[in-house]
């Protein structure tokens, strides 16, 4: 059975009706135009309605949707000339992190991102998009190459988090993330990050210290998963709705808090309902961000990046 979100059931039901009617019409050579048009209108309205009032936890589900476009989908459809480069040249290639050279509307760039799998087999290979230290070290190696050739770095963030396992700890997960943060703060080239799905904690931020940080409308960015938060605070992972509300993890929350620069609109029904539209929107937003950054003096770029992150935080002075 195909993956279904509870709150999307009315949508899926309508979609089924429409496709059934189409099939029937084709088989029996009937003209059902007059019947289908109102149904499609209703579907469009319902999508806008449902997606117009998603709860934070519903957005988490959309951000994790197994048919949502992943990093390689964006790379293949937004970019051209992609040449994937693998390995950290230290230990191994981490399939949870992909990257390489590509063109964004003819402009050469280096693009990097976490990669999830579509099915169980691919997910085992990609480790559900949870990178090991070697993944972060590969990403850093590619960022430095972009710096050397004066081309922009684009990162696409989509991960539940950095992998918390024995090998990952042994090979220095904390060191790898800490090093990326420090090196991104000093990276002398244009750098745009986009959270396309799950922005899971330090493992997401390890690609995220950028000049401009974009978020897809239904992406999330959080210090901890709602399940993890609920388990720690209330000893009950099923209270994740409450945690998702409290954590303020939607794109709108992050924009409000001044932690991201821009929200990239998704088509009604989310990126998985119309991946091509989502990809077009992201392509446009990336292009605009890079153009804007290219208009700045290179020496101002780094200072602006510093100032942006140094201003983050909310506190009181007694």
């Amino acid at each position, binding site marked *: 059975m195909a993956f279904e979100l509870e709150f999307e059931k009315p949508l899926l039901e309508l979609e089924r009706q429409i496709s059934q009617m189409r099939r029937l019409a084709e088989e029996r050579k009937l003209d059902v135009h007059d019947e289908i048009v109102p149904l499609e209108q209703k579907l469009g309205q319902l999508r806008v309605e449902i997606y117009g009032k998603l709860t934070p936890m519903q957005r988490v589900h959309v951000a994790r949707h197994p048919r949502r476009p992943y990093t390689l989908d964006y790379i293949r459809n937004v970019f051209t000339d992609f040449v994937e480069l693998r390995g950290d040249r230290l230990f191994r290639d981490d399939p949870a992190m992909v990257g390489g050279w590509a063109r964004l509307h003819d402009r050469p760039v280096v693009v990097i991102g976490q990669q999830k799998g579509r099915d169980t087999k691919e997910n085992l290979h990609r480790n559900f998009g949870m990178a090991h230290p070697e993944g972060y070290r590969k990403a850093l190696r590619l960022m430095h190459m972009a710096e050397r050739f004066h081309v922009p770095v684009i990162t696409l963030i989509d991960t539940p988090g*950095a*992998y*918390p*396992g*024995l090998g*990952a*700890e*042994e*090979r*220095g*997960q*904390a*060191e790898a*993330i*800490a*090093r990326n*943060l*420090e*090196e*991104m*703060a*000093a990276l002398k080239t244009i750098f745009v990050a986009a959270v396309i799905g799950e922005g899971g*904690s*330090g493992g997401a*931020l*390890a690609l*995220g*210290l950028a000049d401009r940080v974009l978020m897809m409308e239904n992406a999330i*960015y*959080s*210090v*901890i998963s709602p399940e993890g*938060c609920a388990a*720690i*605070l209330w000893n009950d992972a099923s209270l994740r709705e*409450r945690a998702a509300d*409290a*954590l*303020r*993890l939607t794109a709108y*929350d*992050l924009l409000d*808090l001044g*932690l991201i620069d821009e929200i990239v609109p998704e088509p009604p029904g989310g990126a998985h309902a119309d991946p091509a539209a989502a990809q077009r929107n992201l392509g446009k937003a990336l292009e605009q961000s890079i153009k804007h950054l290219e208009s700045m003096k290179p020496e101002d770029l780094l200072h602006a*990046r*510093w100032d942006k*992150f*140094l201003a*983050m*935080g*909310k*506190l*009181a*002075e*007694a």
Partner: protein
Amino acid sequence: MAWFRKERKHSRSSRERLEIPADAWEKCAGCGHVGIRGQFDRNLQVCPECGHHRRISAGQYIEILTDPGSFTELYADLRSEDVLGFEGYADRIAIAQRKAGPQDAVITGFARMTEIEIDLAVMQFAFMGGSMGSVVGEKIARLARRSLEEHVPLVIVSTSGGARMQEGVLSLMQMAKTSVMIARLHEQGIPFISILTDPTTGGVSASFAMQGDVNIAEPGAVIGFAGPRVIKQTIGQDLPDGFQTAEFLLERGMVDIVVPRSELAATTARLLRMMLRREPQTVD
């Protein structure tokens, strides 16, 4: 319970027990050694039998690391705010302030360490597990900016369970904020020595604590990205003995040196003197 019986077997004669009140005895969590509290106190809370390092407060580290009376606190009036309206956070802050003092999970200031001027930040685990929220990030960033402007080396003693989730993604961004300032110190060649104590995990280990020119760990300290419980859950089995200890990280090449508490000041100062091209300290 077994440990109770064992303790009894070791109990002193009744005459001795009359002289030393029962609550003056303390037991080492490392080896079970039972000693008079004063014995642990004199030894910087390190077990004289097995060298187990107990957790100590920020105030105690300041005492151990700096010349007497030389510490001046800075940014002491920064307070955490419940900006997200996060369930229970305001109460947690109030409790932590009563327990550990109002300055949040890090004390910052400047001092002298065997006559070298340093900027010093010491985290305190007693304040919400040393978690990093906006206040910790801001205090570290301000102190590092002072180091940058005054050309004073930075020393940070870390102990933290990670980011403070009650501040949501604001707390995550403190990793980026502090990293920006450390990167700028590195660029200018201002020495930064990171001292990692038990425990240092999560967002603190994955940012400034691992970014020192030199990363020093205390013996036995648990250091890692994920906490032991999370890893255990992920892999579904117990962790090997000594996993994520300072000695384990030393062997795997993730920390530079393991230094016992009694030698932290001397080792840090010796390094700083060389980094700053100063004369070695003369021994009296």
